[in-house]
């Protein structure tokens, strides 16, 4: 009993917990700073920078959300559409490469795999001019299609690896039942691969939501723009006039990802580590 107590509260454990908490405090400083600023008026900010917001200025959020809600809706729609298409294509192609036999399979798969090596900087310029010649410049398709096209590569790899690991007997029995490939995909492969598809969904949702440079290039009208670019426009517009509202906008832009994280933190962490494997 005594030794157990001693082990639990050993000096070493206290020290590492202390260092961890200190580091965590610093990591959270920008977030705390952001939340406090978002609840203060300009007078409070300039008056006493370090004071807690008192009284709390919730109206900052009214201002920010009022300005940014159309862009947030755009983002939600575009990201949702892009993610769904990515998941469907990843699962389908992943299944084809994992489960079906056909001539040229390895060459075709290699052609997909090669794209993992291609960095965004290489294709940025041609893509920018291509969306103009495809006549989708300044439309949501200019975001969705290139996102899906690039995003599915990573999804296909994950899905293929996962589906290859599924027991072959399941699919064999399906064949005896006269179940065609498409039905095997929908009825067997997809339900069994839910965890990996969910990982792809969460990871891609994050990527699409965070993208800044591409929407900046591909979308011209602010009314069609996604939140990341809109928040930057909002920042330059409100910057010095109303710091509180500006920062409230930052918090608003963070909320969707926060909610996503709270519900999917496990997938999120797994996805990140899986995402790293691609390198």
């Amino acid at each position: 009993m005594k030794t157990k107590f001693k082990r639990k509260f050993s000096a070493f454990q206290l020290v590492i917990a202390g260092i961890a908490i200190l580091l965590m405090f610093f990591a959270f400083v920008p977030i705390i700073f952001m939340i406090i600023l978002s609840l203060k008026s300009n007078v409070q900010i300039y008056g006493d920078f370090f004071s807690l917001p008192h009284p709390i200025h919730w109206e900052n959020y009214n201002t920010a959300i009022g300005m940014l809600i159309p862009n947030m809706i755009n983002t939600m729609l575009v990201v949702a559409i892009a993610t769904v298409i990515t998941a469907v294509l990843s699962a389908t192609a992943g299944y084809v490469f994992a489960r079906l036999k056909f001539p040229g399979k390895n060459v075709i798969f290699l052609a997909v795999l090669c794209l993992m090596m291609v960095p965004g900087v290489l294709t940025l310029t041609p893509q920018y001019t291509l969306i103009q010649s495809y006549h989708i410049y300044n439309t949501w398709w200019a975001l969705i299609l290139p996102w899906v096209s690039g995003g599915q590569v990573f999804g296909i790899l994950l899905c293929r690896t996962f589906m290859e690991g599924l027991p072959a007997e399941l699919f064999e029995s399906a064949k005896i039942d006269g179940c065609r490939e498409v039905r095997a995909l929908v009825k067997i492969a997809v339900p069994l691969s839910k965890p990996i598809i969910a990982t792809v969904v969460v990871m891609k949702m994050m990527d699409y939501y965070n993208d800044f440079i591409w929407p900046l290039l591909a979308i011209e009208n602010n009314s069609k723009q996604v939140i990341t670019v809109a928040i930057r426009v909002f920042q330059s517009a409100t910057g010095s006039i109303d710091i509180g509202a500006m920062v409230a906008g930052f918090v608003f832009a963070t909320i969707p990802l926060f909610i996503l994280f709270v519900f999917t933190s496990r997938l999120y962490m797994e996805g990140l580590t899986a995402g790293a494997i691609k390198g």
Partner: protein
Amino acid sequence: MKRLSAWNWVCIISLIAVLISGFLYWQTGKSVDIIQDSEIKTGLQNNSLGLDAERDIFFVGTYNNKLMAFQNKTHEKLWELEAKGPFCKLVVRSEQGLLYAGNSDNNVYIIQIDSGEVVNQINVKRRIYDIDVTRDGEEILISAGAAANKHNLFLYTKDGEGIVNLPYKSIIRGVSYTKDEQEIIFGNDRGEFTRIDKAGNVVGMTELQYRIVGVAKMGEDFAALCNDGSYCVLDEQLKLLRRGNVQSNLKVKVASIGADESGEYLVIGTEEGYLYVIDPDGNKAVSVRLSNAVAGILGVDDLIYITGRGDFIKTISVSDLGQMNLYHIIHSITRITGAVSFALLLISLMMSIPVVKGKLFKMGKALYKYRIAYLLLIPTFILLILFNYTPVFLAFTRAFTNWSKDINTLAEIKFVGLDNFKTMFSEGYFLIGIKNLVILMVTGFIKVLTVPILVAWLVYSMRSDRQKYIFRFLFVLPMVVPGIVSSLVWKQIYDPNIGLVNEVLGKIGLSSLQMTWLGDEKTALWAIIFMGFPFINTLAFLVYYGGLIDVDSSLIEAARVDGATRRGIFFRVLLPMIAPQIKMMIVLTFIGVVQDYANIYILTGGGPGTSTYVPGLELYYNVTKFGRYGYACALGLVMFVFILIGTIINMRIKSNNNE
């Protein structure tokens, strides 16, 4: 044997079809032929045109301040007149025998056509953009301005007496009377296409969203050209009849618009020398590039005259244009028939050779047998071809060309060898970028190799699983802040007036250290590096943590039994065991740092001066600001090679270590 001869027949027929379509395609494709050269030469840079159909006299207003009259048939020069500025607009009134010439020297010259004598000269004391004259030649409508927000519409009588003066706050580049000449229609820089009465009351207005750079009468209707490269046709009631684009990917800087006399065809010319003729269905009947900027367009009877900044006057016949339409249809049909018959030809040729035929049948059979796999991959590959393979191919090929915003058709793009790569070294920005990139790279490695390992080890060393989970969760949590928000928050933290850093320094009595962190060449780059303190890279943390929990606990026990200290275990056992993860993070950091410029774009935009410039940012600016696509591709290619070499070196080291 019978089938073989059938294939031979197909072969011969498709060969004939290929030849016919090819010939027709070639014949109908020569749209340049429709443009004829007039023999009238001024020897100067032309700017505007006028034609007196009754007397058959042709007028050319030049950019070099001269106005010339020619006998249209003999091309003989009748008279010449000099003013102080370029002649921007000529209006002919045959019945009165007068020519009204608007000049950028603030004057409208009224000239006797027969003698070339100036009857009257109206000075409006503002630069003239456009004029129009009533049919009886009595009243002149003038659009003139002194500055972007000082613009006027004037009405003058022929004798130079001012009737109306309407001030406006936006430049009006195109103005015209309505058909009954009781009202005025104009388009301004705010994109407002407006109809007013002569007292200046607005009768109607249509918003065209983009700056209107030209207005032309089009029979009964009006055409407006906007600076986004679109044109609009509106009726007198300002109802939008149709709208279209001539150049969707170019911003039209200075451009001119005109129409044939009956108002069927719309003619648009740009400063880059592009000339388009739009038919009534909105299709481009003609699309060519002239060697000079297009400035003046005039439609009289069956002919459309075009001139510009050069000694040329071109004519297009409207009846030829009618034929063009047919040509176009044939052109597009022959393209399809040509392709189909060519494919047929190839197939039939191959089918005629027994060995190939057998192989083809086999391949077709295999494709059919496994069709479901190929069908399922089609959507994926359509997207990949459109948005990944084509860009990669373009990037590799166009990096060696002079491709740019203005030079963007296959006919114009030229191979320039390694010029783009030489520019990188001669221009200097790339080298500055590399220098900064090296600093960012080294610090990036230090950041990813210290704190994340420490944090991963801290969490790993915690005793209770619950505690581990909570700490892991909380260390990952800050990642939910979108990258862009994080950059903007750090921008606020560095704010010189009301930023966290300076406020903290002030609070602890170190006001002397307060700085404009991002606005000072000495500190800007370091401020960017320090961003994200304390550098708990979530990905690195999770990867290291994953590596640590995979370490066999018996190894650690063994080390402990051997009397190793905690430090010893960390450096001798744990670190070597997570070496693969460390290698991977180094590669990822390398790739990430080369590519990531969004942060810098937001925080400093590369400034102040060039102190935070990186190659990625130079690429971005060359695409957006400068439109030098070829150069941008070359930059992308160099960065790609960088990344490739870096990755390969790292993989080499990795495999050497394993041996």
